[in-house]
């Protein structure tokens, strides 16, 4: 659904995910053709004019909002781009006015209450499982972001390196076992192959993992699927998302 039709400032903004809906979307994210993403909150609705507040968000910040690590008000009062946009548009989505505002000019009646968190999306998220990923990507490299079911606090910086290294080794071992299993079953995977696992980063309670696997594609992907299923089970993961 279009939030704003093509315009010089934002391009065309499409609604991506709705978090509050009453008689229309009232709090949601929008994205334009080049991936610039904003959280949008409705300030006022009149017959011929609607007023909205937009704050640009990075993928990282949006993840923090969804995870409850960051409250919604902070996304507006401490915007990543140091400014927010107050826009007025017609009900049909034609931009009529846009005003760039420093966050210092925002008043309480334009903002969520302090501490209020982004509610769950009104749309039911499609569950993306590792087997589905492995089948649909048909690729030898799968990059996953892993979301735990509950809010987590980030580890102290000095501990992160060691944690990630250990975690990478754990995953490598899981893959090695899966390789051996596939080798014993079909002989299409050389069990002596050393799988490559790269833990590429961690932020806002999520983790990126890059698996680089070699060998017969179908069988190796089966081994990867099995390893990821084990991993999802061990970590009690809620969702797996590809990039």
């Amino acid at each position, binding site marked *: 659904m279009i939030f704003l039709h093509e315009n010089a400032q934002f391009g065309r903004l499409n*609604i991506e995910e709705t978090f509050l809906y*009453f008689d229309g979307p009232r709090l949601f994210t929008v994205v334009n053709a080049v991936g610039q993403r904003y959280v949008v909150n409705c300030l006022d609705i009149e017959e011929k004019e609607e007023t909205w507040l937009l704050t640009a968000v990075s993928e990282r910040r949006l993840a923090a909002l969804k995870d409850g690590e960051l409250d919604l008000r902070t996304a507006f009062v401490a915007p990543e781009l140091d400014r927010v946009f107050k826009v007025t548009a017609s009900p049909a989505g034609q931009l009529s006015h846009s005003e760039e505002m420093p966050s210092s000019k925002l008043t309480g009646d334009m903002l969520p209450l302090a501490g209020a968190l982004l509610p769950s999306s009104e749309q039911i998220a499609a569950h993306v499982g590792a087997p589905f990923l492995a089948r649909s990507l048909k690729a030898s490299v799968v990059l996953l972001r892993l979301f735990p079911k509950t809010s987590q606090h980030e580890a102290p910086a000095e501990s992160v390196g060691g944690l990630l290294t250990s975690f990478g080794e754990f995953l490598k071992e899981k893959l090695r076992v899966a390789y051996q299993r596939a080798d014993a079953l079909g002989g299409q995977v050389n069990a002596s192959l050393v799988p490559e696992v790269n833990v590429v980063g961690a932020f806002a309670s999520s983790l990126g993992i890059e698996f680089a696997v070699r060998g017969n594609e179908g069988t190796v992907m089966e081994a990867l699927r099995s390893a990821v299923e084990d991993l999802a089970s061990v970590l009690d993961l809620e969702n797996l998302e590809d990039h």
Partner: protein
Amino acid sequence: MKKGADQFPIEDHCKASGLSVYVSEQDARKAIEDAARINPLARKSVVVKAVVDAQWGLIAPTPKNGNSHHTWWVPKGKTPGELFELVVSV
């Protein structure tokens, strides 16, 4: 179809095309209070009440977390505003 209804899956278009109402005044008040925490427009909402009969269309229970949320499909040409009386500003 109401604005935004088309963003929902096709099986939800019918529900998204109705108006949200609550059978319980307490539930209506809570819904507004919850929305008002995150959304400035919701702070301008008030609770109003009315009794409707068959000439005012159809309603169906569509609970959210077990509350008394209903969806009301108002017939074309009817203006529900004339039915309601103000209960209280939230």
